[in-house]
């Protein structure tokens, strides 16, 4: 029997234990700190909504598609799509049928909107941090933003949301970015949403110089909720973060705001989203303001055309929210969000139609699957569609791109130059459609690869000047690439099964190891590969404990988009 320790011996041992850790208290590696920001984006939480998993891209996409759905498009005949079968051109949008495509620089950019002399957005750098950026033509983006395109008055950081314009007045609701100690920032719309209390209204009367508007009436701005109703700017506020009641504020000039009505829904636990509309919209005033409440007992929705009076919306079965405007044929076209009650699950978007804008039915013609986004350009609607309900990593096929020339009654695949259907993401960019690669729903925006325009598009507002930054004054976030080389990055991410298969081959894993493999998608710089490069990767781990004194752990890092093996780390004990 071992003798017990006496108090002195115990005290000495405890002292030695405490001393042994002195000088060994490192801070967490930067990669680990940055990893935190990616977790809410990449990992599902127990009660998170399927839709929310894809934050912010999908959620924003839903609201974007809702806005886009009110667009009026001129009916045009469906012409045959030109298919140029050329494997070298895979992923390159096909020219023809009225389409022309301009190569963009591949920047990771979330575009806030068009301003007087170009475009403003939030660009993500190779290190993962985000910055205000600008572009004169929408294809080449510069960080820092060109002062000839966006100039900020005062010391506050300008981090714009969607930009709304009425006449000569531009407005946007900005937010405070989430920045770490090294100055790397993430936009509030990314993995680290800014609380509502830190949102601010910004105004410009020339589309160039922006100044912050401080008004007690604007306290409690929620989300990017800014739009136009009945010829006035509209913003939503709530009395305090997450609680209280909500109000609708209106303003003609963006300076003076007054309460138009109380929201007919409680704002607590609700995201309040606003859309600024688009250059091609439904007949003015026909979409109005739509607000919804989705309690567990069932969804409730109201619409207002004047921001003052409200009418109840009747939703079709399975649709939790629908909104849209009147089109040229006198009917209403909108988008609905399909999901279970309370949006505990969200399947995706559906095209809905109505004769009065209040009673909706689902009717999306031959369009398969679920909408993630829809935009218009020229006489076409362009939709981003997934073939199965939206769910985390549910699809490795990405979103397919469809177009319609008859108000969404019939749809055709939008093809690339090889005749294959394009996959990716689409957004409005002025009078053009922005086509993003990296279409999987883990990536909020992806890289801006192409700008598409239609020959029948009437330019909405060509930038009066397109002052591009000189190399010495600023740098583009990624170098321009010559046309017509196809995109380097495919739009699809590889599946978990493929990742494990590739990793197993690379690591010569046994069947037992394969069966017990763990695989997860992470976004971060590749600290494990001695490369400072942010990207999405599969991290596949094979572990074997062969006995009390032996074992193996092989970690294989695979590029999520390309499937190429980045590094293999084989550990033995």
């Amino acid at each position, binding site marked *: 029997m*071992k003798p017990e320790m006496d108090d002195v011996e115990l005290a000495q041992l405890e002292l030695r*234990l405490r001393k*042994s850790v002195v000088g060994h208290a490192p801070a967490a590696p930067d990669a680990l700190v940055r990893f935190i920001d990616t977790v*809410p984006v990449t990992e599902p939480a127990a009660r998170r909504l399927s839709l929310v998993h894809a934050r912010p891209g999908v959620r924003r996409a839903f609201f974007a598609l809702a806005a886009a759905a009110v667009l009026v498009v001129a009916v045009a005949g469906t012409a045959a799509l030109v298919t140029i079968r050329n494997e070298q051109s895979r992923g390159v949008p096909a020219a023809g049928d009225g389409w022309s495509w301009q190569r963009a620089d591949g920047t990771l950019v979330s575009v806030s909107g068009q301003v007087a002399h170009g475009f403003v957005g939030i660009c993500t750098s190779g290190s993962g941090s985000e910055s205000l950026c600008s572009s004169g033509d929408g294809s080449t983006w510069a960080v820092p933003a060109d002062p000839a395109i966006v100039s900020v008055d005062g010391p506050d950081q300008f981090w714009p949301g969607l930009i709304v314009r009425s006449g000569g007045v531009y407005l946007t609701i900005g937010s405070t970015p989430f920045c770490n100690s090294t100055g790397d920032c993430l936009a509030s719309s990314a993995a*680290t*949403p800014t609380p509502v209390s830190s949102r601010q209204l910004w105004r410009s009367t020339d589309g160039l110089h922006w100044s912050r508007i401080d008004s007690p009436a604007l306290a409690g701005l929620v989300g990017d909720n800014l739009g136009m109703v009945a010829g006035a700017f509209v913003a939503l506020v709530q009395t305090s973060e997450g609680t209280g009641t909500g109000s609708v504020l209106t303003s003609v000039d963006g300076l003076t705001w007054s309460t138009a009505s109380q929201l007919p829904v409680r704002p607590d636990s609700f995201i309040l989203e606003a859309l600024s509309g688009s250059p091609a919209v439904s007949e003015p005033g026909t979409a109005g303001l739509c607000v919804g409440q989705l*309690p567990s007992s069932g969804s409730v929705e109201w619409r207002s055309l004047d921001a003052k009076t409200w009418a109840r919306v009747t939703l079709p079965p399975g649709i939790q929210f629908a909104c849209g405007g009147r089109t040229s044929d006198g009917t209403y076209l909108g988008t609905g969000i399909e999901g279970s009650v309370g949006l505990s699950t969200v399947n995706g978007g559906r095209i809905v139609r109505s004769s009065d804008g209040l009673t909706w039915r689902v009717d999306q013609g031959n369009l398969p699957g679920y909408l993630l986004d829809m935009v218009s350009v020229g006489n076409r609607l362009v939709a981003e569609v997934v073939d199965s309900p939206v769910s985390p990593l549910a699809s490795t096929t990405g979103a397919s791109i469809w177009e319609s020339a008859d108000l969404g009654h019939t749809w055709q695949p939008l093809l690339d130059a090889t005749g294959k259907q394009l996959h990716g993401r689409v957004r409005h960019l002025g009078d053009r459609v922005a086509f993003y690669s990296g279409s999987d729903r883990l990536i909020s925006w992806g890289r801006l690869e192409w700008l598409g325009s239609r020959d029948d598009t009437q330019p909405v507002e060509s930038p009066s000047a397109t002052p591009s930054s000189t190399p010495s004054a600023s740098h583009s976030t990624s170098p321009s690439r010559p046309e017509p080389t196809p995109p380097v990055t495919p739009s699809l991410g590889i599946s978990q099964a493929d990742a494990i298969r590739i990793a197993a081959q690379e690591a010569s894993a046994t069947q037992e190891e394969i069966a017990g493999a763990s695989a997860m998608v992470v976004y971060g710089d590749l600290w494990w590969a001695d490369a400072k490069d942010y990207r999405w990767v599969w991290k596949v781990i094979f*572990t074997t404990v062969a006995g009390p004194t032996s074992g193996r752990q092989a970690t294989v890092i695979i590029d999520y988009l390309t499937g190429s093996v980045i590094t293999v780390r084989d550990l033995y004990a």
Partner: protein
Amino acid sequence: MEGHLIVTQLDAFEGASYQYVRAARAEVNDAYRLAGYILGDATEAQDAVQDALVKAWRNWPTLRDPEAFGPWFERIVVNVCRDRLRRHRTLRMVDLDDAGEVESPDIFGSMIEGDEVAGAVARLAPDHRIVIALRFWRDLTLEQVAETLDLPLGTVKSRLHYALRALRTDLKGSGDEA
């Protein structure tokens, strides 16, 4: 330009993710050190904290009070570390390329190799190693250790007693005359 506004119910996620990121950032240094002390390897510690961060987010809805994130997250970290220790049978993995070398390049490895006591702790059974790390390296009270491990206070005291006794035996066996 015309537009419209939409109000839908999704804000809970925004609030949750913001709170999560803020809370996790506040705790990640302590978590990394604790994992490093328990696992004795910087890479393992980093992987463990990554796993813990993911688990914490997935279980975020079960955390009623976000202010209590620290102890809650620490418990997750400890559980992840325990799983790793048991899986690896307390053996430290060595890079195949460096198999011929025994030096550890990371700060936790050098702590174990450079300090006899820390080295002895690394040879303890996982549960003993954890209780030592929490009590003396994380500097928690016995009550806090019990809370973190979700164990009765008496069990913690007993476990600590046996851990210290095993340590002493190890140190004496290696010629130490502490």
